[in-house]
């Protein structure tokens, strides 16, 4: 594209108003998206520092870098920060807020003030959790298993739990807002089956948020009541059932995995289509597989508890349902791969992240089958095999999709391009670093190294060294975008409205978009990804 002739639009959402108040009181979904981007980026750095310290500690078998209590707090806070303060809000709150209205041709979300409130609620909850961290930390593990969390832990459980409880309402409000917006505010002609797949994914995710998060809230309130008044809900010493907590907790927290991965799948669908310049193969299958994953996701929580004293037949039900949930995931992977067939495939930064996503998600998904399989789960559950598996899904999947989306939509959000070469280098470095970090952990897990170990027998050292080395490479991979994206804000070339030559309403409006997104309401006349209607310049 000839960038010399391009200029930024004179007024857009970023310069329409100035001053702190114009940001803190904004109801513009795009600005709220950026508020979330800033907040969760800070939390990501914090969670990353904890991760780095964990990997450093595990470089040698004896627990010689930090004390055991410190280590327990590090992995707990790494989990809490990354899951509740980064992964769950990441794509819905940043890309969802920014692009759901634009992609359906609306001026804003259905409830703009509720949207702003969801950011404030998120920050208040985040502050409680940060307070828990600075006043001594939490050592229960992010899962808060009872009776440890209700009787044995002397750490700051309450503040952290209150923080998570509050942040949950932010997810509920965002989910509610998206559902109403997608139902009622689609531009003329934007039928359900003309919606970009990212919107299907956001819709499915919102359903989980609205239906699942209240259960988490109830669970956390129960833990707080149990800690304060010993009601005998979870603690057997007072007549409670320790496993009741696990049922309640995983009823939310298993679907929460899909809150993290479904949005990423939506982004990957966008990226594969845009960079193959082709309709997604099996659009309806991909769309419905998102809904199928959301629905099945609520029925498999018990597979976290196969060794926790569940009845044999209960375990069998959860096992077979877990295998069923793998099927729609496999369907997505095959459809994305098939989309490349006879495409016009280019390998700019977002596409590399998307292809990286497919690779890592495939490994993460397949190793999920090991855990769904009862006979193997007994051996590998609570070992590093599980750690590796869920990092492949949640970091390899969710985070790669997030970074792919960030690179794809960055020019739209800021109006400027970043150096694509550096972007591609970062994507490759992240991919390699990721595999070096987490692949050895599958082997470690099958060898029997339990998770959450601060010190370990010496025979596990070699694989831990590999893993820690990989973590440094991965850290560099995450640092690079931070640098060149900041650089691009001032020095990046002007992007123009559609730097990728992509389809989708978001590419029909200027970059950055005006406050109300479109000068006039767009009318949709064709399916999403209708690249075959683009005139072929060169056959």
């Amino acid at each position, binding site marked *: 594209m000839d960038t010399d002739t391009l200029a930024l639009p004179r007024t857009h959402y970023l310069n329409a108003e100035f001053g702190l108040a114009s940001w803190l009181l904004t109801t513009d979904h795009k600005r709220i998206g950026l508020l979330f981007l800033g907040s969760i980026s800070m939390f990501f750095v914090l969670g990353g520092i904890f991760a780095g310290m964990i990997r450093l500690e595990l470089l040698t078998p004896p627990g010689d870098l930090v004390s055991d209590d410190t280590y327990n707090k590090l992995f707990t806070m790494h989990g809490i920060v990354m899951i509740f303060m980064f992964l769950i809000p990441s794509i819905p709150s940043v890309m969802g807020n920014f692009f759901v209205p634009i992609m359906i041709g609306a001026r804003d979300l259905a409830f703009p003030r509720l949207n702003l409130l969801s950011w404030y609620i998120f920050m208040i909850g985040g502050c409680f959790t940060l307070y828990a961290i600075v006043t001594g930390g939490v050592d229960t593990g992010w899962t808060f*298993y009872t009776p440890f969390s209700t009787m044995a832990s002397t750490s700051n459980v309450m503040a952290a739990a209150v923080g998570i409880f509050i942040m949950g309402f932010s997810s509920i409000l965002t989910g509610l807002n998206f559902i109403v917006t997608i139902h009622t505010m689609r531009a003329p002609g934007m039928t359900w089956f003309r919606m970009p797949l990212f919107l299907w994914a956001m819709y499915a995710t919102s359903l989980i948020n609205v239906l699942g998060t209240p259960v988490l809230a109830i669970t956390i309130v129960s833990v707080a009541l149990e800690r304060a008044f010993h009601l005998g809900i979870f603690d057997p010493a007072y007549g409670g059932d320790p496993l009741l907590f696990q049922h309640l907790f995983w009823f939310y927290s298993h679907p929460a995995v899909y809150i993290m991965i479904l949005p990423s799948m939506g982004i990957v669908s966008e990226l594969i289509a845009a960079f193959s310049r082709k309709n997604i193969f099996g659009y309806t299958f991909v769309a419905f597989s998102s809904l199928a994953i959301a629905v099945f996701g609520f029925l498999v929580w018990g597979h976290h508890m196969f060794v926790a004293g569940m009845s044999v037949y209960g375990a069998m039900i959860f096992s077979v349902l877990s295998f069923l949930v793998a099927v729609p995931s496999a369907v997505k992977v095959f459809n994305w791969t098939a989309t490349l067939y006879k495409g016009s495939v280019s390998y700019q930064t977002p596409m590399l992240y998307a292809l990286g996503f497919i690779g890592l998600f495939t490994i993460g998904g397949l190793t999920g*089958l090991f855990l769904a399989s009862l006979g193997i789960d007994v051996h590998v559950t609570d070992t590093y095999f599980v750690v590796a598996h869920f990092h492949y899904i949640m970091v390899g999947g969710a985070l790669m999709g997030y970074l792919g989306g960030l690179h794809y939509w960055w020019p739209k959000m800021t109006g400027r391009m970043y150096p694509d070469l550096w972007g591609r280098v970062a994507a490759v470095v992240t991919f390699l670093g990721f595999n070096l970090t987490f692949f050895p952990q599958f082997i470690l897990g099958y060898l029997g190294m339990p998770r959450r170990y601060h010190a370990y027998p010496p025979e596990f050292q070699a694989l831990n060294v590999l893993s820690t080395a990989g973590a440094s490479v991965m850290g560099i991979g995450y640092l690079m975008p931070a640098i060149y994206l900041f650089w691009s804000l001032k020095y990046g070339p002007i992007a123009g409205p559609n730097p990728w030559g992509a389809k989708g309403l978001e590419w029909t409006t200027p970059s950055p978009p005006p406050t109300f997104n479109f000068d006039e309401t767009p009318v949709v006349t064709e399916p999403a990804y209708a690249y075959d209607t683009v005139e072929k310049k060169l056959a």
Partner: protein
Amino acid sequence: MPELPLFPTQASTMAGKVDALYFFLVSVSAFFVVLVAALIIFFAIRYRRRAHGEVGAKVIPSLALELTWTIIPLGLGLVMFFWGANVYFVESRPPAETLDIYVVGKQWMWRFQHLDGQREINELHVPVGRAVRLTGTSEDVIHSFFVPAFRMKADIIPGRYTTLWFNATKTGRYHLFCAEYCGTRHSGMIGTIVVMEPSEYQAWLAGGGGEGSLVSQGQKLFQDLACITCHRADGEGRGPILDGVYGSKVDLVDGRIVVADDAYIRESVLSPSAKVVAGFQPIMPTFQGLVSEEQLLSLIEYVKSLKGRELNTTKK
């Protein structure tokens, strides 16, 4: 440079079964990873964008293809499910004849109690080639009993009895890990399973340290706690006769029927009014806080032993 092991020792009858399934899943996974990666790389090169402004060809998705790649993963998933469930059945059903040992988890140690009195901490001696059944509970939080070489793991939960079993096939010393996070010294809650030749095991058992069999410890406790005054063998006491009660069905005052297993006996000692036997008043005091988990185990073992006595009395 430290050694680089890639596969754990196989030291129980379970290990081979689990590993066979594991290798099947590894093969299937490797096949699909290679397939997807090869297709992506092939398409990526074959269909790379050659000219600016070029678009992809229109490809009509084929329903047959969609169904194929839905049904094949479903079929493979079901094979994995049935195979895995089959292994799990074996894992959860101990054989009829077992050597029974009790285990109590406590922050942060493993305590073992052999039936004939030997007690151990963080070390468990067992004979090779014999099915061993462990019955475990926890004094505080949830722990998990994990022996990688045996491919065996089960959570040890306060207020419940977990049973697990193994049949060791190779003598040696194996790691016993706590696999469920349990607080500060979770990673220090490591024990050793010592698998010995049966003759050595007999010698070890005989080698002192015992405090009389678990049954006799339980019997002494039964007298010391004055349980004997109500649970009289002649049926004249204010509590039910315990002879032969273990493993039998018990009618409760509220009409329910329960099986008098380990968990029921434990509950009856700690909260006697929870499940009162039909025909009796809820007058038994609670022993919560008075008996430790280990003492409970000896009481259970004593009640179990009363089965034999009952047979003797009916013969008269």
